[in-house]
């Protein structure tokens, strides 16, 4: 078609109802006919983990076609960020993947730091603290995955245990930042505040407390015959599909791909830690579950190394064009006062350019694409969230499976609709 003709087409006249009703009947051979039926699953459904709507065409109990419909949680975060200063936009990032806020903060902070060109000013204390927090947040996020996906398949007690352990992690976050979930603790240029004195001890207590609990989960689920029957061989995602559709994180590794951004493009000092990448074989629900269980152990390993090596130092860069000077300087130093005033009224102006920095969030590859036009606000902020691509590949997992297995498959890709819709 010529360009001119396409410009004359009204793109809003595309008939979506035509796509949604796929009713047809198929002869069964004995004179009867089999009919397909189109049903809605969601947006208000307890096992869709938020406001996901699936339009399922079923034939009996089998899913013939699945169309995910998203956008029910679209809050326009990318648009909002264009009117905020770089520092103000940190709090928006918390609210995307609300189960892994610190990982979002970290990805945003790293991307802005690359844009500013201050990556080499970040000292080891900041890097190690960020790693400890990101890995604690990863465990917390995987605990929510474990609890909710087990709950979907009928194992209620796991949910309660997981939230009990998650509470310990949230207590640490509350202790350092005053907030349990939306901490905004990691920001471009360092951390919002210095670490309080008992932080290290709290993390060490958690390191002693958690491993026995993890063994309890293995005892409850990994060798549980009911759990195996509901998860093994269900929702299989092939290696080729996973890569072609851009699945990432545990969903990609469950299909047998050895790929972890922390190893491939180390950021925030991950190259200094020793850890392994757990990988599945079959790409089914059980493999994705097991990859996350093993990842929690790897996270514990990383946290242990980071806490042991946590050096003393400043918690923000010394460049006062980016990070505010200490409070005591502001009362006695004219220049510090001006910097403080400029930072909190206008913010900082990165040079013209763009940056895209990949990180490994619990849900998959998380990256912020930030374009600067030299002004104090991001000209454009785009978020590449793991959940978005992982949800796109969901129909490949569930088509041909039973309706009751759809619940298991949705649980196993661990989506957060806040990140999908942004």
């Amino acid at each position, binding site marked *: 078609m010529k360009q001119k003709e396409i410009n004359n087409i009204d*793109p809003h006249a595309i008939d979506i109802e035509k*796509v949604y009703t796929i009713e047809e009947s198929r002869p069964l051979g004995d004179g009867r006919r089999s009919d397909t039926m189109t049903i809605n699953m969601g947006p208000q459904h307890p096992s869709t983990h938020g406001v996901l709507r699936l339009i399922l065409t079923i034939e009996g109990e089998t899913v013939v076609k699945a169309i995910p419909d998203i*956008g029910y949680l679209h809050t326009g975060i990318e648009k909002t960020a264009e009117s905020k200063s770089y520092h103000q936009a940190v709090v928006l990032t918390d609210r995307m993947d609300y189960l892994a806020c610190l990982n979002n903060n970290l990805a945003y902070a790293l991307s802005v730091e690359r844009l500013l060109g201050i990556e080499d000013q970040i000292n080891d204390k900041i890097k190690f603290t960020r790693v400890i927090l990101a890995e604690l947040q990863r465990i917390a996020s995987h605990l929510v995955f474990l609890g909710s996906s087990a709950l979907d398949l009928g194992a209620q007690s796991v949910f309660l245990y997981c939230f009990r352990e998650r509470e310990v992690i949230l207590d640490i976050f509350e202790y350092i930042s005053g907030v349990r979930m939306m901490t905004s603790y990691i920001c471009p240029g360092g951390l919002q505040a210095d670490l309080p004195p008992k932080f290290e001890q709290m993390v060490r207590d958690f390191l002693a407390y958690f491993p026995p609990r993890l063994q309890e989960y293995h005892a409850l689920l990994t060798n549980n015959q009911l759990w195996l029957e509901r998860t093994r061989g269900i929702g299989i995602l092939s290696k080729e599909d996973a*890569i*072609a559709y*851009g699945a990432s994180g545990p969903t990609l590794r469950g299909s047998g791909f050895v790929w972890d951004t922390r190893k491939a493009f180390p950021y925030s000092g991950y190259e200094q830690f020793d850890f392994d990448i757990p990988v599945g074989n079959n790409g089914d629900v059980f493999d994705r579950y097991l990859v996350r269980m093993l990842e929690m152990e790897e996270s514990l390993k990383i946290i242990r190394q980071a806490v042991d090596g946590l050096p003393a130092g400043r918690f923000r860069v010394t460049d006062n064009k980016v990070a505010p000077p200490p409070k005591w300087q502001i009362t006695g130093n004219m220049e510090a006062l001006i910097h403080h005033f400029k930072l909190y009224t206008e913010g900082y102006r990165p040079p013209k350019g763009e*940056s895209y920095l990949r990180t490994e969030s619990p849900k998959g590859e998380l990256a912020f694409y930030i374009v600067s036009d030299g002004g104090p606000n991001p000209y454009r902020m785009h978020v590449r969230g793991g959940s978005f*691509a992982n949800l796109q590949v969901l129909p490949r997992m569930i088509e041909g499976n039973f309706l009751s297995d759809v619940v298991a498959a949705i649980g196993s890709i661990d989506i957060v609709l806040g990140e999908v819709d942004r």
Partner: protein
Amino acid sequence: MVITAASTVETVRNTFPQAIVETIDFRGEQTLILEPASLVEVCSFLQKDLQYTFLETITAVDWPERVPRFDVVYQLLSIPHQCFLRLKVRVGQRKEKYPVVPSVTGVWPGANWYEREVYDLFGLIFEGHPDLRRLLMPHDWTTHPLRKDYPLSGFDLPEPHWGGQVPYTVDPGVGELYNQTLRTSESRGLNEHRSQINSGQEPGTSPALPAEDKDNL
């Protein structure tokens, strides 16, 4: 053979000399700006021959004062070679309401949702896309919110509309209305006025119940 982002840029420059508009190296990230006509050709070359098998994301950037107006940005990753590359095409001539970009869904099936998202939020049409529908906004929405001339703080409807259905046909995203409604002090007053009269009923919800109905609930 070791492939890096820099060597990829060289390879593409040698293989498709007519396709490259510009190359940028900023903070260690290579960007390759291509002619829209040869986008699919270069993409399938990168996917097949240089093993850029992983398409991370597609997005767009709106530069209203520039011609062509839109940057469409592709982030690619090569897992075997552990390197990444950014592709860009520039589309949108003057007075072109819905610029056309060739679709890369044939190269990476995962481009499907990303292209739908860009169509939804920027109004770019991906030629050859199998199912170009809105993704995030309601399907009867008429404008494209991430364009820079789309107002940030909502828009005024042409007349007071309490008790009635919000007319979705109102086009808030086109420049003139935006200038009328948001840039003038008079319209800011109108906005405040509207928020007062509308407390309790936001656009898109059903009309507030009469008092006696509330008692029955």
